[in-house]
């Protein structure tokens, strides 16, 4: 951010950025795009899968967030505000070709089952796999597919919490759900993802 670009106070944090945008200071637009562009592009990519859809979500989010900023009561909460607009944009976006049905994940389907005689389940330990292997090539494609295969209501909590690094309270506020529901969905999404990766690696 360039504090020397305008006549107002320096834009050194989200509060100052929100205040500069609300005041209509033109030098605030580039810092706004710099700050939230990469975040919302990554969020949209995870939620929608396609780069073109993610760019559409980004465009819609920045415009709508800017236009509705006057409704933001606490300028310090700019990040939560922008993610809320982005979450709405993602949840509204229909999957191309068909509407994704809402689906719940039950614990039964994501926890290992005991054997027929009640013996403990066999669980492969692939936790030593290096992270750079998980995040490159075929394994990365499998991870991306597995995240996209999660029901949207679960995927969005996983992405907000584990990819975007937001807290439970922030994620719950963004989605307009209780903290408890956000925790339940995060937990089941993680378990479902573990199961999908396990199915591929084992």
């Amino acid at each position, binding site marked *: 951010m360039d504090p020397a670009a305008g006549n107002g106070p320096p834009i050194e944090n989200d509060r100052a950025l929100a205040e500069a945008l609300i005041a*209509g200071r*033109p030098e605030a*637009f*580039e810092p*706004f*795009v*710099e700050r939230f*562009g*990469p*975040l919302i*592009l*990554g969020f949209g*990519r*995870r939620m929608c899968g396609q780069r073109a859809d993610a*760019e559409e979500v*980004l*465009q819609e989010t*920045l*415009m709508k967030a*800017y*236009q509705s900023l006057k409704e933001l009561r606490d300028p310090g909460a700019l990040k939560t505000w922008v993610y809320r607009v982005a979450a709405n944009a993602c949840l509204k976006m229909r999957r191309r070709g068909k509407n994704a049905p809402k689906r719940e994940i039950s*614990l039964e389907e994501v*926890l*290992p089952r005991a054997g027929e005689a009640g013996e*403990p*389940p*066999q*669980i*492969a*330990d*692939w*936790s030593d*796999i290096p*992270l750079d292997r*998980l*995040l490159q090539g075929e394994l990365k494609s499998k*991870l991306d597919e597995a*995240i996209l295969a999660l029901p949207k209501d679960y995927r969005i909590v*996983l*992405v907000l919490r*584990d*990819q975007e*690094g937001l807290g439970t309270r922030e994620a719950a506020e963004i989605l307009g759900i209780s903290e408890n529901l956000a*925790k339940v969905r*995060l*937990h089941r999404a*993680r*378990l479902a*993802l*573990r199961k999908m*990766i*396990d199915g591929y690696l084992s």
Partner: protein
Amino acid sequence: MSHPHAMSCREMAAWLSDYLDGNLQADLRAVIDAHRGDCPPCEAFIRTLARTVEAVRSTPREPLPAALKRSLAASLRRLRRR
């Protein structure tokens, strides 16, 4: 499985995200620590769940292309002029 602890594998599974996020009270954490030490399937389950979460957390972020950056800033400027 039979454990000397007060929590079955199934009961424990409900707490694992809080456990991995460091959000559990010390006594509950200690029960899970002891359980996984005695139960190889749960140990493998917890380790692979932790790896799954780490992988999502470590996803590299794509840079925003300069042309897209310019076009977004220009769209915002147009909105301001309306």
